[in-house]
């Protein structure tokens, strides 16, 4: 099972195993990691699962959809490495992925 590291706003790090086929958002919820709301439950509809992906990993991810890009633009403090974590499917290739959580979910 791939390992994903979530770094919270307060600097605390949480390294957890997430099943392939699951999402980075789901991984956080299944491990009680705070800072992801996921109001819609993972259907690219709420943008309350915003995260920042550590640069080297960014290119390993599939392109965000237009809807995701547009919602990201209007999250709290968007950055070039912003993604909606429910739209990142966990694969073996993402073993070691590092994501940081924002100060606020919109």
């Amino acid at each position, binding site marked *: 099972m791939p390992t994903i590291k979530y770094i919270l706003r307060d600097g605390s790090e949480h390294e957890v195993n997430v099943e392939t086929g699951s999402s980075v958002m789901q991984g956080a919820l*299944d491990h009680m990691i705070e800072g992801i709301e996921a109001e819609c439950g993972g259907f690219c509809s709420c943008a309350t699962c915003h995260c920042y992906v550590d640069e080297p990993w960014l290119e390993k991810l599939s392109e965000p959809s237009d809807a995701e890009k547009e*919602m990201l633009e209007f999250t709290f403090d968007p950055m070039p490495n912003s993604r909606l974590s429910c739209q990142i499917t966990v694969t073996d290739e993402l073993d070691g992925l590092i994501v940081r959580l924002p100060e606020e979910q919109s």
Partner: protein
Amino acid sequence: MALSCVVIGASHAAAELVSTLRREGWDGEITVFGEEFYLPYHRPPLSKTFLLQNQTPEDILIRNSDLYDRLSVNFRLGRQVSKIDRAKKQIILGDGVKVGYDKLAICTGSRVRKLDVNGGEVRGIHYLRTVDDVKSIQASIKTRGKAIIIGGGYIGLEMAASLKKIGMEVTLLELSSRLLERVAASELAEFFARVHGEEGIEIKCNKSVSSFESTDGRVKAVACSDGSVYDADFVVVGVGILPNIELAEDAGLRIHNGIVVDQYSRTSDPDIVAAGDCTNHPNELLDCRLRLESVPNAVEQAKSAAASICGKKRAYASIPWFWSDQYDLKLQMVGINRGYDEIVLRGDYKSNRSFVLFYLRQGQLIAADCVNRPKEFMVVKQILSKRLRVDISLLSDESISPREFIVG
């Protein structure tokens, strides 16, 4: 001795409630009784990916089973609760077994409204609420067959889109004079009627279904009161839901279009909370009471219910919102348009598939329906949640960014 919390309904609200309980520091027992045989799962995919892509219930769980194990949450699935005895602080299961509680959470959600017409007891007539409903739909679907959908609400429309994708010939029958009568403005209904027409769905309004015709115990046609008859290999009924309030009502809790709770999700009994589709709750931001049928409502309300169980106060005061995915459309609705006296249009709903309908009441923005307009949705959600001031004159101006709607 550790206290015990019992949850009725292995629902969306329950999944959120039990994890929040542990986060809030509840260290007593937690037992969830669920009538269905599955851990809490997402219902939105049922009409879409779950139906079309042969997903399993494990694929759509709200939290994985490992988490519940780690949190020591005990699920008793396939068990129906038939009574709440408040005096003895216990629940009684269908088989008579009694289970005591210190704190009780009612998360019973809602069930489909059944169509009460002649001939409805045959094979081939389906409803859609649960995984098992979809399994029986899948067993009964015939590619290239004729599907009749009864009811032009979101469930009916999402089903129409999915059945079309499978290759069925789809006709949708609606009782009132337009789609989405109960839940949306006529402009939005007109838009969806056009799009579904373009996608090849036949929509018939003002159709009151009066009976089903069958051969060998299987539906073969749907008859309407105006004499029209539609051949059918397969029927899906989506005519609304009813909140599951009976347990609470029998126990003497206050009921008024749902189980009445306060902003902390507390019922009229201090040891009982309720959350999700089954509740009627106040909304401070909107200054009214609501009963909502949506995922965000179940999630947010459950968090406040969990806090209350732990003796903390966390008010539930979110702007209601909802989404629906059909074809290439993402509809995101935010706010409650009740009592609107003006609609401002951004974009073109008569010939395009991307626009916003803003609802105003006395010059104030109160709600928006956004079709393929995620930016506007995000902005309006912030405006309504934070009560920001808006320059109404800019809403329809496509040359400016939605960001600029906000004054100051």
